[in-house]
């Protein structure tokens, strides 16, 4: 990957933006010295385990925990009734202002639902006690299909006043304008598609250590949290413990991907267990609990229509979608956006009108759906628009690349107002796709494909030219439970010239300890190696909404730059004082203020920092600190073009991804090494749902894919060599021109792969294949068409 486009303004010893700095956090991870929640061991700590439901839907007739309580070492069994008695803690709000059971009293509504919690002196005794709890159930009919659910024959949430499984209805765009465009367009296509339920499967499962200090009435919580401040606020609101008496620490986190944004019943039980026993209590989910009961992602049933005119220009898009929310709407979308940013689905294409309608249904499945590395439902939107674009191109007999180039929003149209109301900040879609085509040798591949098809061999080429929308967000539109989605940074420059940077976002592998140091190094000229970045402790970090939806760089990254600029303003005053010069006569040069025209008269940032504590001007506050709470004026719109080549085994239907070229544009780049790492990881997480991953339930609602034996995470062996390239189109409104990148590849990759497989089979009449595209699905098509080896 060439870094020719990456802007570098600092020397290597400063290591500001654009340098390929090795991650500061890696030495501890590589040497096994990371500190995760399960590494926390407190004196006298107890262990919590959870009895889970074997039914997807059943009345609870009785819970008999007497045998469990009689087991030596078992201290408490917590049921829904206990939580109710403790102050109606048996229900909790979800981040979407729905409600979710913590522990049930009347009935269970999903398989593996938490039924009661056991507290014991050892992890093993807790697990033994689970088997001794006798729960009598009366099975009720499971509701597994959201379309059936909407018929309201069996009500999932009969706790609610309205006896219906319909959760909400939401629209975006203009219905009448869209109808009008469709009526006069010469070509329309329609395709139903299902984006299956999947799971984030972070390597670290969820867990907590809660420690209630009875003397000081103070709760310390170690928690697998992507948003420790937001969680502290929620815990305070639900428990009634004042927020200053709660300290949430999110230590090293082994992957979040959205799955560590929701509050799970296990967390609440752990906090209650510590309050009840007055001891520290640890709860760590095992892998199957994580896969079976924690929030899922996706699960969108889409019915899309696209129109085009006689010249093959896309004119309109009409999308109806049913979201399967499971037993509660426990998504983590901004309040005004129950379907997230799904209406970004007009994608990279210029069109006149679009209309989106989404309805959500309750089913007897675990609650959701989290924004799994997808910046609030953008994955679903991109899969839809990129599949539709491909079908339209094929139907019109046009090359999918040429068709995209013809229909892209043009560079000069930015800022672009989309038919669903977004203002795209910047982009150059043509350049990204043309670069990807050049890198992969597109024309030659099409020739090869034609030759192979003539010989009966199956090869496909798939493109995805996605537009992302990240960085939530402007406080006028974006909040979670009313808390505005700004983010924050606090900088302290020490007298000897090193610095402490504290941020309101929380890394789960993104490399914040490195990239935030580089942002501050860029702005202040302090070496990135001398800047310590802290986050995740609500007692020390400034308030922030956390890390998800690729928002850290767009929000807290901007806050870091703005806070650094405040410090630089003060530094300028001190420098003027030290140099006996007017501020207007000073100019900034990497790491020092220089008197214009007198290059020998200068003060470095380190000298200025020392003076801030030893020799500052009279009347000025001492010290060198600043805080910024950044409220972005708009979202940022990263984009990219991916091209994928697949070969299909005619005998077995197996799909081999031969090549995958990914050109990403995430604006200005802070650290190309970390960006490439994010892209490699994200592409692998995009390959996964395209070809492998799906949560499968049987007709009774039992999860059949509750272990990594059957929930198929790809390994390095399934993963192709990722060929990455980049263009740089800076965000015009972001202080450092950055856009965010964590989710682009997860969002962009699945349709590139799906389009490639469909492209290989198009001549057989295949228009669409549902992901994950398994060998069996391909095999069936091959045999139906008389194709065999």
């Amino acid at each position: 990957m060439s870094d020719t486009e990456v802007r570098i303004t600092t020397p290597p010893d400063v290591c500001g933006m654009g340098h390929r700095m090795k991650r500061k956090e890696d030495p501890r991870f590589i040497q096994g010295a990371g500190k995760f929640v399960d590494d926390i061991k407190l004196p006298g700590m107890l262990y919590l385990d959870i009895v889970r439901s074997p039914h997807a839907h059943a009345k609870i007739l009785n819970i008999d925990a007497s045998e469990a309580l009689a087991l030596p070492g078992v201290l408490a069994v917590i049921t829904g009734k206990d939580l109710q008695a403790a102050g109606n803690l048996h229900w909790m709000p979800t981040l979407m202002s729905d409600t979710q059971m913590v522990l049930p009293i009347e009935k269970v509504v999903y398989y593996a639902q938490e039924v009661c919690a056991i507290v014991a002196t050892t992890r093993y005794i807790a697990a033994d006690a689970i088997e001794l709890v006798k729960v009598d159930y009366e099975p009720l009919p499971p509701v597994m299909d959201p379309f059936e659910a909407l018929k309201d024959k069996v009500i999932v949430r009969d706790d609610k006043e309205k006896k219906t499984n319909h959760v909400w209805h939401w629209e975006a765009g203009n219905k009448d304008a869209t109808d009008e465009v469709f009526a006069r367009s010469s070509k329309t296509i329609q395709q139903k598609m299902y984006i299956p339920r999947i799971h984030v499967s972070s390597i670290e499962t969820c867990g907590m250590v809660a420690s209630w200090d009875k003397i000081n009435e103070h709760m310390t919580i170690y928690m697998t949290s992507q948003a420790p401040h937001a969680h502290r606020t929620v815990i305070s609101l639900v428990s009634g413990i004042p927020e200053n008496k709660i300290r949430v620490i999110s230590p090293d986190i082994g992957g979040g991907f959205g799955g560590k944004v929701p509050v799970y019943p296990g967390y609440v039980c752990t906090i209650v267990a510590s309050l009840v026993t007055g001891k520290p209590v640890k709860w760590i989910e095992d892998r199957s609990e994580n896969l079976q009961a924690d929030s899922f992602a996706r699960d969108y049933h889409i019915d899309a229509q696209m129109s085009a005119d006689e010249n093959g220009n896309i004119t309109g898009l009409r999308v109806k979608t049913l979201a399967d929310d499971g037993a509660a709407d426990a998504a983590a979308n901004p309040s005004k956006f129950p379907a997230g940013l799904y209406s970004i689905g007009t994608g990279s294409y210029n069109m006149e009108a679009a209309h989106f309608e989404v309805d959500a249904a309750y089913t007897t499945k675990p609650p959701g759906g989290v924004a799994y590395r997808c910046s609030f439902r953008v994955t679903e939107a991109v899969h839809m628009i990129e599949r539709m674009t491909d079908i339209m191109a094929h139907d019109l007999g046009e090359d999918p690349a040429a068709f995209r180039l013809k229909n892209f929003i043009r560079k000069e149209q930015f800022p672009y107002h989309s038919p669903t109301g977004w203002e795209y900040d910047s982009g150059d879609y043509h350049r990204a796709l043309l670069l990807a085509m050049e890198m992969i040798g597109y024309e030659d591949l099409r020739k090869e494909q034609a030759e192979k098809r003539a010989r009966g061999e199956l090869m496909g080429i798939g493109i995805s030219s996605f537009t992302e929308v990240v960085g939530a967000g402007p406080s006028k539109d974006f909040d979670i439970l009313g808390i505005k989605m700004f983010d924050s940074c606090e900088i302290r420059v020490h007298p000897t010239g090193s610095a402490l940077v504290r941020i309101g976002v929380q890394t789960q592998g993104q490399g914040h300890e490195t990239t935030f140091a580089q942002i501050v190094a860029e702005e202040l000229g302090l070496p990135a190696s001398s800047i310590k970045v802290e986050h995740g402790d609500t007692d020390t970090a400034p308030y922030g909404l956390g890390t998800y939806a690729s928002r850290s760089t767009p929000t807290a990254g901007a806050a870091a730059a703005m806070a650094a600029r405040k410090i630089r303003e003060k530094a300028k005053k001190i420098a003027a004082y030290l140099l006996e010069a007017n501020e207007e006569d000073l100019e900034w040069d990497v790491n020092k203020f220089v008197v214009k025209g007198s290059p020998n008269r200068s003060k470095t940032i380190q000298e200025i920092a020392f003076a801030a504590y030893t020799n500052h001007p009279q009347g000025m506050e001492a010290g060198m600190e600043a805080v910024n709470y950044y409220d972005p004026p708009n979202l940022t719109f990263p984009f990219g073009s991916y091209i994928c080549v697949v070969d299909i085994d005619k005998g077995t239907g197996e799909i081999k991804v031969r090549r995958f070229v990914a050109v990403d544009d995430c604006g200005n780049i802070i650290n190309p090494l970390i960006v490439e790492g994010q892209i490699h990881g994200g592409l692998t997480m995009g390959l996964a749902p395209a070809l492998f991953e799906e949560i499968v339930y049987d007709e009774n609602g039992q999860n059949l894919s509750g272990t990594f034996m059957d929930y198929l995470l790809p390994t390095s062996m399934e993963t192709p060599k990722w060929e990455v390239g980049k263009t740089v189109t800076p965000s015009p409104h972001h202080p450092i021109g950055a856009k965010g990148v964590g989710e682009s590849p997860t969002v962009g990759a699945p349709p590139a792969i799906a389009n490639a497989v469909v492209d290989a089979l198009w001549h057989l009449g295949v228009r669409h294949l549902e992901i994950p595209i398994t060998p069996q699905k391909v095999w069936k098509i091959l045999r139906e068409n008389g194709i065999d080896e």
Partner: protein
Amino acid sequence: MIPGKFEYFAPTSVSEAIGLLGQYGSEAKILAGGQSLIPAMRFRLAQPEILVDINRIQGLEYVRETDDYLEIGALTRESAIEKSTIVQQRYPMLADTARVIADPLVRNMATIGGNLAHADPANDHPATILAYNARIVAEGPGGERIIPVDDFFIGIFETSLERDEILKEILIPSPPGGSGGAYLKIERKVGDYAVVGVAVQLTMEDGLFKSIRIGLTNVSSTPMRARAAEALLVGQTPEEALFDKAGRVAAAECEPWADLRGSEEYKRDLVRVVTKRAIRKAIERANGVL
């Protein structure tokens, strides 16, 4: 993922282990590499009261060739089989098998003896050991006995080993000249159990199939041979139409079931396709192509 209570023994000799098995009977389980038993215990699908860990018994980890046999100690790790030069050069089907079992971390612990004694039709070694016409050496209180592999697997998770017998050694007959073998496995991802697996070991003489044995993985409740397909091929001239017919016969005689790995129809068809491929590859190897 937290196992139940058990008592743990770590005998240092085969006789000591046999004594423990005799003493505790059906309550005891042998722990070798733990590839299958440890996950089963962690899910509490298996809750043995007594665990007899045989990993401290010396002298059961070896791969050596005598005039008549390749002798493999029951505690030999899959990674050792995978890396063995003798296996790679003289018994390529065995190398094929070891390298597709689970993942490298598991293969460092997993043993061939455990893989066979567990008698899981989804395990990979049973098919290849059937195709090799191996012999299983077992030791019990009364001494050693040799069990022909065709008599070894008698049901799902069930072998002809007595409760107080330990699988000690696997004997694979040295292949005569003109022999070749191959194990091909279709898996959803690396480390998965087979959707289907086909093991073919054959010997060519004067341009004809002198002998052929075909073992199938995960398409019946007991590890099985495709006997009808074998019978079709013996004495015949190798040609594509015949391979195709053999594949069809093998597909008809296996007994797969529908699960997340695929429908019954899909698995049968894969047996057909993969049997053909395995025969072709075994012939290539018989002709000296590794």
